[in-house]
């Protein structure tokens, strides 16, 4: 697999791309693909391959890939399944470096014969192939984009350090759209569909070495080789945290199950076991997924003691409840901290955890309180509740919270609950990379995940 994985980088950083099935007929997939590259400002050469034309949307068009006079690094195939094996073989003979097959109509409809021919060509030419039956890839750094959903319908996220690998195109594209919406940058998007040649294990192996990727989101429906997946998760997760989501948890009860264990421990139990063994963070739904992803830009907490800062008592209490419910701890502030905090609070204020700065608190009070608790060795992470509705709070708080998030001495989550006005603050915070949540429970759950990951990495001395 080595050679094929090495060549896979050409799919993301090609000097030239050919689209087989490239067209200019409105609403055709081949047209969307051409426009994605042209309007998406892909900087390399673009070719169309289609026997009907000699030019498509201003780009040269050839009857077959091997007829293109110059070298072609990456080929995107969107023609009917029956035509694909010959195109792949033609690409191999031409010396193409990597292929994305978007077309469906292979194993998923029992056309294993077609899949086998692709596999044969892939072996023969050591050719990496993504797909078939997928959306392919999107790379915001190079603007390679094989997603046949028009950009005006499906936003593309900007560059970042999170890679997303997905079996399903539908879920994948939704996550992509939401990532863009939340302002979350990505390094690579890979929808691998049937995984005929390259599957999730190969993608993990590839992303382990990928310079732009620091974290991996993985959406799985089923895998062929669970053992290999477990091994790769074990290898990659300690270096680049993996957040996994498994769909199809409640399949049909196993027909063969005669024992209690057989009944109790269905197939999902095996996935769950593998996630636990590899210490992979598991998300139960898309909301969890985004909640968890956001916090992984924070430093790993050394323990589970949380300091809470709030400008509203009730929200502080709800946050404390969430901390207890998650099995985390409310931190005890040091005497030094308490003395310093007393100076920040108004005369009637009480120093405690949660630290209630009260509604009179301005941006400066937050700034000072954060600085005090950042220096307190009895606090492992900070949950900062911000009621944006109080009179003294204004946009300067964005800067204060961004500094706290970038401080990197302790993990920080921010919690703001409210309507349209509050949402605008959240967006602003998110665009600065500040983990921002609209409920104490989701914030603390995410913090707990990060703390667990940290513990697994051995940063917490094991409890006796």
């Amino acid at each position: 697999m080595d050679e094929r994985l090495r060549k896979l980088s050409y799919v993301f950083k090609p000097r030239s791309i050919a689209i087989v099935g490239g067209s200019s007929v409105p609403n055709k997939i081949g047209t969307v693909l051409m426009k994605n590259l042209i309007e998406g400002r892909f900087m390399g050469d673009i070719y169309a391959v289609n026997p009907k034309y000699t030019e498509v949307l201003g780009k040269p068009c050839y009857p077959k890939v091997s007829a293109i006079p110059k070298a072609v690094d990456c080929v995107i195939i969107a023609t009917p399944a029956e035509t694909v094996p010959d195109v792949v073989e033609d690409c191999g003979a031409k010396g193409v470096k990597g292929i994305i097959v978007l077309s469906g109509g292979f194993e998923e409809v029992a056309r294993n014969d077609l899949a086998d021919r692709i596999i044969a060509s892939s072996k023969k030419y050591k050719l990496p192939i993504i797909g078939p039956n997928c959306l392919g890839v999107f790379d915001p750094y190079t603007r390679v984009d094989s997603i046949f959903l028009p950009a005006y319908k499906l936003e593309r996220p900007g560059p970042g350090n999170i890679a997303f690998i997905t079996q399903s195109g539908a879920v994948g594209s939704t996550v992509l759209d939401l990532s863009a919406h939340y302002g979350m940058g990505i390094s690579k998007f890979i929808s691998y569909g049937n995984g005929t040649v390259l599957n999730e294990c190969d993608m993990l192996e590839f992303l382990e070495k990928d310079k732009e990727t620091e974290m991996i989101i993985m959406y799985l429906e089923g895998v062929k080789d669970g053992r290999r997946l477990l091994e790769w998760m074990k290898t990659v997760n300690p270096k680049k945290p993996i957040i996994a989501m498994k769909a199809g948890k409640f399949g049909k009860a196993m027909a063969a199950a005669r024992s209690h264990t057989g009944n109790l421990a269905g197939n999902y139990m095996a996935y769950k076991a593998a996630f636990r063994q590899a210490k992979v963070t598991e998300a139960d739904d898309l909301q969890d997924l985004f909640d968890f992803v956001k916090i992984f830009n924070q430093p790993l907490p050394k323990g589970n003691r949380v300091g809470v800062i709030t400008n509203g008592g009730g929200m502080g209490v709800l946050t404390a409840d969430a901390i207890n419910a998650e099995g985390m701890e409310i931190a005890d502030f040091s005497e030094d901290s308490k003395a310093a905090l007393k100076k920040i609070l108004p005369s009637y204020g009480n120093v405690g955890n949660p630290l209630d700065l009260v509604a009179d608190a301005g941006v400066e009070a937050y700034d000072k309180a954060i600085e005090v608790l950042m220096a307190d060795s009895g606090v492992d992470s900070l949950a900062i509740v911000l009621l944006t509705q109080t009179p003294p709070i204004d946009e300067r708080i964005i800067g204060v919270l961004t500094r706290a998030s970038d401080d990197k001495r302790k993990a920080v989550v921010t919690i703001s609950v409210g309507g349209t006005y509050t949402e605008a603050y959240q967006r602003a915070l998110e665009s600065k990379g500040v983990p921002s949540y609209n409920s104490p429970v989701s914030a603390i759950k995410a913090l707990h995940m990060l703390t667990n990951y940290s513990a697994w990495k051995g940063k917490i001395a094991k409890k006796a």
Partner: protein
Amino acid sequence: MAMLEDFRLLEKNGFRLLPYKLATEEDGAVAAALKIGYPVALKVVSEEISHKSDVGGVKIRIRDEAGLRLAYKEIMDSTKGHKVDGILVQKMARRGIELIIGGRKDPQFGHMVVLGLGGVYVEIFRDITARICPIAEQDVEEMIMELKTHPLLEGARGSKPIDRAALKRMVLGVCRFMEREDIKELDLNPVVFDEDGGDIVDVRFTR
């Protein structure tokens, strides 16, 4: 007799079963119980009966010869019409916390081991956790801590903590057994643990 073959295979793989003896007539059962020591349990052995207790094929906590003779007759009576190979006389298990230790060969992940709270509510509470084989002792420790009911094992309300080392050995043993003998499905259900160790009460596996 499949049941005894299963027992022997388990013993060959290092599992210590409660002392047992197969009897084919009442006097033989009395002699066996004397040798094993009361209290004992009687279990019908028959290829035709898969749920022994459902047909009245199991009698437990038998304390003396009179009780044993009565139980023997009752089992033979209630299993009339089935081809019975004999009656298993087995040392009664200790009282303690009932757990289930099982395993399954998953089509994608291969052999996996399952640990959970056992007993009659196992299907309701579903307090179970699993790992892919092979595993190390640390994995079993994590499995135990993942059980919602783990405080029970640590001695809730005045009871003593169970023999955790014995439990870990048994889970590790199941993992090894699953892999070495290529078992499809296995149930040790229940296994009963107290502070001095654990007893396997019932075994079922398919290769």
